[in-house]
């Protein structure tokens, strides 16, 4: 089971990620079915990974074809005139746009957008909370799932642990190694509760990761009990 979630490894050494998002997550993101927290992690990986970006574009094109394939539903008889009447109205305020902290010219921030837009400060200035020796965390306020930045001291080894639900981890700075492999900037690991692992941070610099818990939905309500007998395999 555990191996099913192992991200495919390819390339590396050229500053590009070698552990990628799988098609299932990219498809959910393209279709608009991921929570804001999972979307944040995926979009931040996409900022660092041209390969997954190309696949995500392909899946948006699939969405375009899906839209095109739908049988039309008649709109209200006055819909067109209502819309035309609004075209010249002054621009309504668009949904909040993230304002990333200002950067020095030429300085490449370690945290890419859109993640940087969710933080009030550069990593060093965040209110990190100590967890265990060598590990600190900073919790982000994002809808949909528990979302944290983790900061691990160089060379620190984390105790063996499993995960509640599925945990998506994106490395942003430094690196770590575990039973699956080596994870550096931009790499994604998808770990579920069948996994236990024991990451060790690489030498030289702190390892900073974004983690999101994507707890799979369990069918426990009326609907679930009703449906489940029909889907026994």
């Amino acid at each position, binding site marked *: 089971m555990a191996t099913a979630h192992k991200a495919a490894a390819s390339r590396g050494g050229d500053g590009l990620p070698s552990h990628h998002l799988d098609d299932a997550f990219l498809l959910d993101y393209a279709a608009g079915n991921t929570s804001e927290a999972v*979307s944040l992690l995926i979009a931040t990986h996409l900022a660092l990974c041209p390969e997954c970006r190309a696949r995500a574009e392909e899946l948006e094109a699939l969405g375009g074809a899906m839209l095109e394939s739908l049988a039309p539903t008649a*709109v209200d008889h006055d819909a067109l005139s209502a*819309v035309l009447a609004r075209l010249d109205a002054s621009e309504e305020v668009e949904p909040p746009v993230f304002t990333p902290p200002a950067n020095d010219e030429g300085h490449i921030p370690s945290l890419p957008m859109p993640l940087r837009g969710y933080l009030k400060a550069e990593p060093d200035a965040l209110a990190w909370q100590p967890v265990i020796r060598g590990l600190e965390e900073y919790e982000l306020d994002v809808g949909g799932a528990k979302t944290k930045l983790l900061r691990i001291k160089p060379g620190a080894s984390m105790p063996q642990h499993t995960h509640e639900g599925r945990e998506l981890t994106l490395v942003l700075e430094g690196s770590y190694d575990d039973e699956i492999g080596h994870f550096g900037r931009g790499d994604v690991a998808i770990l579920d509760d069948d996994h236990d692992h024991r990451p060790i941070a690489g030498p030289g610099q702190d390892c900073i990761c974004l983690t999101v818990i994507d707890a799979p939905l369990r*069918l426990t309500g009326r609907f679930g009990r009703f449906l489940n007998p029909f889907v026994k*395999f």
Partner: protein
Amino acid sequence: MVADGLAVAAALGVVHNAPPASNTPMASSSPTAASRRRSAHLDDLLVAVAGGDRSAFVELFEHFAPRVKSYLMRLGCDMSAAEEIGQEVMVTVWRRAETFDRRQASASTWMFTIARNKRIDAVRRERRPEFDPTDPAFMPEPEIGGDMAVQAKQETATVVEAIAELPEEQGFLLRMAYYDDKPHSVIAAETGLPLGTVKSRLRLALTKLRKIMKEHE
């Protein structure tokens, strides 16, 4: 509900197995010239809208507004919410048309992203984080032999044809993601199948889709 559950099961190939990959449809016909011309025409219209052309907007509205409404209703909006959000989508199209780049995406794909995002905003009341190509931390496409590795955009007509040629179960599985608001974790929960199995079925469906599109090229 029962039918839904069985349909999900069928989509996953657990009721009867999906045909083997070698069982490709017979001679694959390429998209008709007419549907390609229509795709290109929609792209032209959207470019004209970016330039402030109202009659192009009216034509675009007539094509897309009824489809966007269907899309929103498939995803659970009632008639009046679909109407209201659909109108929002069309107003946004007018305002954002200048961000459309026909080399990168077709008009249908661009419309899909506007409708998808508007729905997340209006129905789920969530933001949809997206990458920013102007961010200094953004990692551009690697240069291959001096050329940027530019990927040709997927023509909507080609993708529509390819979906139609997918084995029924695979097409159903993909439609669940786009039309039924079902992320793969929910598909797994509803069918009782391990996540890994759902993931591999999705991967197979997409691999098949890419293969069909290659044959059309």
